[in-house]
C-alpha cells in the first residue's frame, strides 16, 4: 500500500483543523513564551536568574523555552493520535475510516508524520530566535538539533500513544475523562520540566518505559551539559528510545485490532 497519499491527506487535516483555526495557531505559537515567562516570573520571586545559570549551567530563558517547546512539540505530534478514536467516533467519521480499504492501525501510525510541520513552525518561532539571540550561530545550530530531537521524541511516542488511546477506549466508555488525567501525567513522566534523575525510583522506572523520555534526556544533556554529549550516551539513549518504540508496535497493533473488534461487535456509531 502506498502511504504517501495517506500522509498527504493527513496533511490536509493538519492544514484544515489547525492552520485554519488562526486563534488556536496563535495560542500554539505563543505557548512556549507564555510558559517560559511564567516560570521565570515565579522563579525570580524565590531565586535569581544568575543563580539558576550557575547551578544548572544554562541560561534559564533558553532552558525553559526549550522545555516548553519540547512539551508542546511532543504533545502536538501525539495528541491527535491519542484523541483520534474518540474524535472520529464523535464526529461520525469512524464508520468511513473503518469501512475503508486502509487498515485503521496504518492510519493511526501515519497521523503524527504531518504534525511535524507544526513542530518545525514552533521551532522557528520559539527556539531559533531565542537561541540565535543569546548564542549566535552556535545557538542557531543547537536550536536545529533540538528541533530534530523533538521531532524524533514525538514520533517515537506514537506507538505507545496508539496503545494507550486504544486500550483506554476499550476499557471504558467515556475514555476522554481518563485521557485527560493520563496525558499531563505522561508529560511529567517524560521529564521535560522535571528531570528524570530527580524522580523517585518507581516513577523513574515508569519514565524509562516511555520511548521519548530517553530523547528528552538527550535534549537535557545537550542543553545542560554545556556541549556535545559522549557518542556512547547519545547512541544508548537513541537506541533505547527506538527499541522501546518498536517494542510497543505489536502492542499498539493488538490494541487497535481489539478496539476495532469491540466496535464491530457493538456496532460502530453512525
Amino acid at each position, binding site marked *: 500500500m502506498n502511504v504517501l497519499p495517506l500522509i498527504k*491527506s493527513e496533511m490536509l487535516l493538519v492544514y484544515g483543523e489547525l492552520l485554519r483555526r488562526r486563534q488556536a495557531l496563535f495560542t500554539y505559537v505563543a505557548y512556549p513564551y507564555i510558559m517560559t515567562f511564567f516560570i521565570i516570573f515565579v522563579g525570580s520571586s524565590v531565586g535569581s536568574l544568575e543563580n539558576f545559570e550557575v547551578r544548572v549551567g544554562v541560561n534559564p530563558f533558553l532552558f525553559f523555552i526549550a522545555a516548553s517547546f519540547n512539551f508542546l512539540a511532543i504533545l502536538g505530534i501525539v495528541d491527535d493520535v491519542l484523541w483520534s478514536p474518540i474524535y472520529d467516533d464523535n*464526529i461520525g467519521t469512524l464508520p468511513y475510516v473503518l*469501512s475503508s*480499504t*486502509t487498515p485503521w492501525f496504518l492510519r493511526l501510525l501515519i497521523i503524527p508524520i504531518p504534525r511535524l510541520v507544526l513542530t518545525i513552525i514552533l521551532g522557528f518561532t520559539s527556539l531559533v530566535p531565542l537561541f540565535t539571540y543569546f548564542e549566535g550561530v552556535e545557538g542557531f545550530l543547537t536550536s536545529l538539533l533540538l528541533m530534530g530531537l523533538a521531532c524524533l521524541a514525538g514520533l517515537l511516542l506514537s506507538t505507545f500513544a496508539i496503545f494507550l488511546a486504544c486500550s483506554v477506549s476499550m476499557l471504558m466508555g467515556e475514555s476522554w475523562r481518563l485521557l485527560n488525567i493520563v496525558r499531563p501525567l505522561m508529560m511529567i513522566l517524560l521529564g521535560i520540566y522535571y528531570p528524570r534523575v530527580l524522580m523517585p525510583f518507581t516513577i523513574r522506572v515508569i519514565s524509562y518505559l516511555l520511548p521519548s523520555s530517553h530523547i528528552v534526556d538527550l535534549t537535557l544533556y545537550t542543553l545542560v551539559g554545556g556541549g556535545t554529549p559522549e557518542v556512547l550516551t547519545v547512541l544508548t539513549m537513541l537506541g533505547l528510545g527506538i527499541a522501546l518504540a518498536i517494542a510497543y508496535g505489536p502492542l499498539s497493533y493488538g490494541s487497535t485490532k481489539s478496539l476495532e473488534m469491540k466496535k*464491530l461487535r457493538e456496532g460502530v456509531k453512525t
Partner: protein
Amino acid sequence: MSEEAVKVTKLAKKYLTKKRKGLLKSEKLVVEALRGVSFTVNYGEVVGLLGPNGAGKTTTIKILSTLLLPDSGEARVGGFDVVKEASKVRKLIGVMLSVEKGFYGKLTGRENLIYFGSLYGLSGADLRKRVDEVMELVGLSELEAEDKLYEEYSTGMKARLSLARALLKNPPILLLDEPTLGLDPMSARKVRDLVKSLALREGKAVIYTTHNMFEAELVCDRILLIDKGSIVASGTPEELKNKISDIKTVILQVRRGSGNLNAFLSKLAEVAVGGVAMEELGVDYLEIKFNVRSVEESLNKVMRLLTEGGLTTNSFKVVEPTLEDVFIYFTGGKA
C-alpha cells in the same frame, strides 16, 4: 460477477443494552435487532428497506457495510462474506450512513473527498479527477460548493457530499441509510433521481432504507417491509399493494355533534380491519378513516351504524389502499 450483488441468509443480531436503575444499579436488556432475515439484491436493482424505527434497517446496513458483526446467519456482498472477507467487501461498497455527520468541518467539500478518497486507495490525478466527477454528479459543482468549508454546508449539501463519498471509488454496490432524511424537496428529488439512474444506467445494486412511503414507491424496484427484526412482506410496490387488494380504505366526513359519535366509533371498531383514524376537518367536520375487507357487507353495516347513531355525513369515499396502508397493515400502524 454474479447476478446476485447481495445475499443475506438467516441473519440475526442481538444487542445488549443497559437500563439504569438508580445511581449504581443497572439492568441488562437484550434487544433482538434482527431475527433471521433473508433476502437478495441483484445488480441494476434498487431495493428498499422500509420499516418503523428500531425495525432493523440500520442494523442490516451496518452488517452489510462490515461495521457490525452478526450473531448468526450469513451475508455475502459481491460474493464475499462480510465477516470472513471484510476487506474484499469494502472494495465493492459505497456507504452513506448519515446525512448530517461524518466529515471534517474545517475542510472544504473537495478536501474531505480527497481525504476519504486516499483512505479508499485512490491517489494523485485519478483521485482529483474522480472528486471533480462525483461533485459534478451530485450537483455540488452546480451549487459552487466544492471549495466551501463543510461546516458552512446546508443539510442538502451535506447529503450530496455524503452521496459523493459513497460514489468516490465507483463501487458496484451502494448501501444508503435514509439518504434523504431532513432534506428539502429539491435536494431529496436530486438524490432519488441520481440513485435511480445509477441503478438503471450503471447497473449498480442499491439498498435504500427510508421511512418515506412515497419515496420508496418512486425509487425502489422492490421493497422489503421489515418490522421487529423480521421481513414481514416483500415485493414490488404494486405486488405489495395487491397483497391487501381485498382491503379497501373508507373515508367518512361526519358533522360534529350530529349524533352519538362515541357509540358509533365503538361499534365501527368491530367492522374495521386494524385501527380507526380520526382527524378534525375545520370546526364542523371530522374525518374518519378505516380499512374494511368485504366491501359490500361492511359498507351496509357502516351505513346502518351511521343511521343508528344519528350522524350526518358530508362525504363517503371508498379508495384503493396506498403503500402507506400496506405499511400500516403489516407493521400494525407504527411509524
